[in-house]
């Protein structure tokens, strides 16, 4: 489905991605873990084409999107949903307009139909009835969930989640984990989940990949990752600091 080959990215002089190689299969949930600042969000932004690689290939359904122009990219992006780490809700629009944004822009559905779909998606993320609120009136966790509703509003084939459970209470986090699995099971979506939350990672993942120092250093099923011999991975998943 998605194949990334030798992806390099620098910001100025500062290298972030130093040769990422990874394949994401159709219908799987791939979780990417890694330390804060290691480039997980940057990697996601490459997959949806809002960052261009310095070097390397990003093939989505067999085509290298790194070479695409704006309108070709937009066609590919219509298959993607993305939840941003900071939710990135449009703050001049209501929750309804945020969640219905894609449908309003790219489909000919009428207002009632869009409202109905928006209500449905908001219910899925556990926030029924907030349609008329503005984003500033939402808590951090609520924003995240509205962002999630926006990402799934157009029933994408591929969803990118940037830390879906960060800043959300444990009960709601479980609900979101279940939602990720459910979407995958029902619609056989392909999902890429970036997270620090190992509970969530083990719950949702078909495979887990660890990004460290600009490279994927380990990839495997949750079972394999749990039994890893790689000291960096072991340290990360058990949460032990090297200082003590």
């Amino acid at each position, binding site marked *: 489905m998605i194949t990334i080959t030798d992806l390099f990215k620098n910001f100025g002089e500062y290298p972030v991605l130093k040769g990422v190689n990874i394949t994401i299969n159709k219908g799987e949930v791939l979780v990417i873990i890694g330390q804060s600042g290691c480039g997980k969000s940057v990697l996601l932004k490459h997959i949806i084409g809002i960052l261009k690689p310095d070097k390397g290939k990003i093939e989505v359904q067999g085509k290298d999107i790194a070479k695409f122009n704006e309108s070709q990219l937009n*066609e590919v*992006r219509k298959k993607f949903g993305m939840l941003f780490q*900071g939710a*990135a809700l*449009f*703050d001049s629009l209501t929750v309804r307009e945020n969640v219905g944004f894609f449908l309003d*822009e790219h489909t000919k559905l009428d207002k009632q139909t869009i409202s109905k779909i928006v209500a449905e998606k908001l219910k899925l993320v556990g926030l029924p009835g907030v349609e008329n609120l503005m984003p500033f009136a939402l808590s951090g966790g609520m924003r995240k969930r509205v962002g999630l509703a926006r990402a799934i509003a157009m029933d994408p084939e591929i969803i990118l989640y940037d830390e879906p459970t960060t800043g959300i209470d444990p009960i709601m986090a479980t609900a979101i984990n279940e939602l990720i699995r459910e979407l995958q099971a029902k619609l056989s979506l392909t999902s890429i989940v970036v997270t620090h939350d190992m509970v969530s990672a083990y719950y949702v993942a078909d495979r887990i990949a660890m990004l460290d120092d600009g490279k994927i250093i380990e990839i495997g099923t949750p079972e394999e990752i749990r039994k890893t011999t790689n000291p960096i991975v072991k340290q990360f998943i058990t949460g032990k600091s090297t200082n003590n």
Partner: protein
Amino acid sequence: MKKRIYYFFQEIGGMSLFLPQIILQIFKPPFKPKYLTNQLVQIGVNTLPIVSIMALFVGMVLAYLAYLQFKIVALEVYTGSLVSACMVMELGPVLTAIIVAGRIGASTAAEIGSMKVTEQIDALSTLAVNPIKYLAAPRFLAAIIMLPVLTIFADVIGIFGGYIVGVWQFGIRHRIYMNKSVDFLAADDIICGLIKTMFFGAMIILVSCYKGFTTSGGAEGVGKATTSAVVVSIVLILVMDYFLTIVLF
């Protein structure tokens, strides 16, 4: 110093590359009139009150000062001519543009800048919407349409302000004041004044959108972008005014 010169040319280069992108997006379907009307209201209707107040008082002050000067040489009947010529050719267009730079330039740079630093611009892209088309194109078009309209209001209200002072305060006869106001007004002057404002409007939106889209560095960055959008716009209005005046009049 070297860095500043480099920065200066970088900005000029950036803006001149940005302009064709906006123009391209204006002509590229799909067209969404909804976004244009929103901006027409923002730039036109919502700016009208402040433009009116500015024009009224500028017209009044002009008439007052002109009257005092003309009186010395016993030509006070020409007060109206001076007010209308100044308003139509110079003050109406330039002051309106400066007010729009302050009001719309600032809000545009701040809004787009904060969308940039909170990844809303990226979010637009992921939703397959071109951010320049969505944010810059309607503003650009609306400014080109609305600046002349605002300026017409400013011209008329300014002339009325002069009338209040000339006729009601100093007692120049109504008919004489009106005749002298109109006598020296050529349609060409009015139109050239309005054409100037289209350039001002386009430039204000170009500068403020560019500043917004290139914002970095959180809330502080948004503040800087906003300030520099307004400062650069106002300076450019004054510089452009001189050259446009030479070309047009």
